[in-house]
């Protein structure tokens, strides 16, 4: 379980958001939505401590991640798989090697076992035959799927998705949404999806957190979102040209 308690973050004199508190239960999929610049990705980067807050806590299974030492933090980070906005694949190695990368350093698996795990991950994202290609040879959707395969290869407890459908066509976006649902169901992973794609939110999320006006403006289930009369949230949904 992830608990975010009274989190406040600013960059210099620019306040990103303040006093953000929410809880993400085991196996749940939380979508964090908000306008560009509302600090969605900044919030995500606090969960695996790529950023530190001005104040507040993030508790992973009761442990405040901002207080642990770096060596332990690195272990803790391995509980998380992250799909970055641009996939963040290492462009000097092949797609296969990208997926195998964490296994080579953080597991005692033999080369045969690594191959099996990599193929298992690539098959989960429907890219079993992509291995020898370099990231530069892949389309945006393929890159995201390889990024997702790399994120799940270490069998993490939590998956963080940063704008998983941004820059993709509607069909590919739907494929990614299917994968997010499939990951949550088949691997029983707790997921946090950063997005402003309402179609994606309504398909994959159990709960929704809406960041607006430098605070957590609304938080509830998808069913509650459908009937919410929160003015900014309604305006955001309407602006995304999606009818609930």
């Amino acid at each position, binding site marked *: 379980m992830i608990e975010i308690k009274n989190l406040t973050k600013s960059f210099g004199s620019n306040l990103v958001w303040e006093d953000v508190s929410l809880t993400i239960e085991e196996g749940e999929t939380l979508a964090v939505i908000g306008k560009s610049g509302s600090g969605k990705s900044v919030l995500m980067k606090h969960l695996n401590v790529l950023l530190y807050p001005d104040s507040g806590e993030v508790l992973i299974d009761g442990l405040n991640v901002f207080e642990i030492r770096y060596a332990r933090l*690195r272990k803790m*980070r391995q509980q*998380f798989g992250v799909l*970055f906005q*641009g996939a*963040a694949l290492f462009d000097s190695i092949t797609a296969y090697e990208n997926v195998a*990368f*964490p296994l080579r*350093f953080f597991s005692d698996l033999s080369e045969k076992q690594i191959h099996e795990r990599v193929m298992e991950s690539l098959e989960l994202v429907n890219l079993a035959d992509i291995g020898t290609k370099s990231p530069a040879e892949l389309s945006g959707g393929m890159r995201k799927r390889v990024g997702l395969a790399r994120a799940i290869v270490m069998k993490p407890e939590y998956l963080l998705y940063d704008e998983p459908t941004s820059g993709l066509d509607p069909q590919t976006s739907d494929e990614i949404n299917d994968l997010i649902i499939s990951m949550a169901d088949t691997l029983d992973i707790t997921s946090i999806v950063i997005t402003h794609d309402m179609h994606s939110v309504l398909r994959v999320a159990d709960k929704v957190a809406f960041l607006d006006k430098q605070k957590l403006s609304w938080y509830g289930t998808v069913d509650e979102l459908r009937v919410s009369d929160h003015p900014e949230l309604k305006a955001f949904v309407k602006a995304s040209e999606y009818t609930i």
Partner: protein
Amino acid sequence: MQLFVDVGRYCRLIYEAIRSSTEFSMYRKNIISEMIKTGYDSLPIIILAGFFTGAVMTIQTSYQLVAGFIPPSTIGAIVSQSLLIELAAVISALVLAGRVGARIATELGTMAVSEQIDALESMGFNSVTFLVMPRVLAGVLMFPVIYVAAAVAGIVGGLLASILTGSLTVADFMLGARQVFSPADVSFGVIKAFVFGYIITSISCFKGYFATGGAEGVGQATTQAAVLSCIYILVADFVLAFLLL
């Protein structure tokens, strides 16, 4: 104010690199490839730069020392000692500030702005151990080798220039070189190369690692890495000469 922030970040980066140097298994493979990129791949340009520096210096020294009472071997002495003490180390460092420094800053800068460094950290890697440590270590290990290559190429260039111009014989050149040769000069050059290697790789890693702002940010980081490396090479050259000669 920004200067103090930068100095603090630089010191922290280097401290982290040194602190994590015991995690050898993390950067073992990287250090070999970095040594090849920094050292072996730089040899052609370094040999070329060293060769022509030695050749031009021989021609110019011959031109300046036209007085008949100065023995020709003096030219060999001046050229060889200048190469060993100063030119082989400084010329190769200035050339490699562009070649090696720009490469490192661009590589790390691109990784930083495309979130590849965040990806490494997210997987549980210490990105400084993985990216900075092997590059700096390869720099300090390979620059002395590069210095020796530049010095040898410079002396060969000087010899060939003396033959081509007929200003002095090979025997005169070698006589002068042998008369003034001192192992301390080579040690001084190696120390310089070691320091220059550290300056170029550490500054370039720092600029690349903290690059922000997309392609423009990477471009700025690369330019700053090359320019700052050149400035600090010249400053360090003066300080080392002042302290050690």
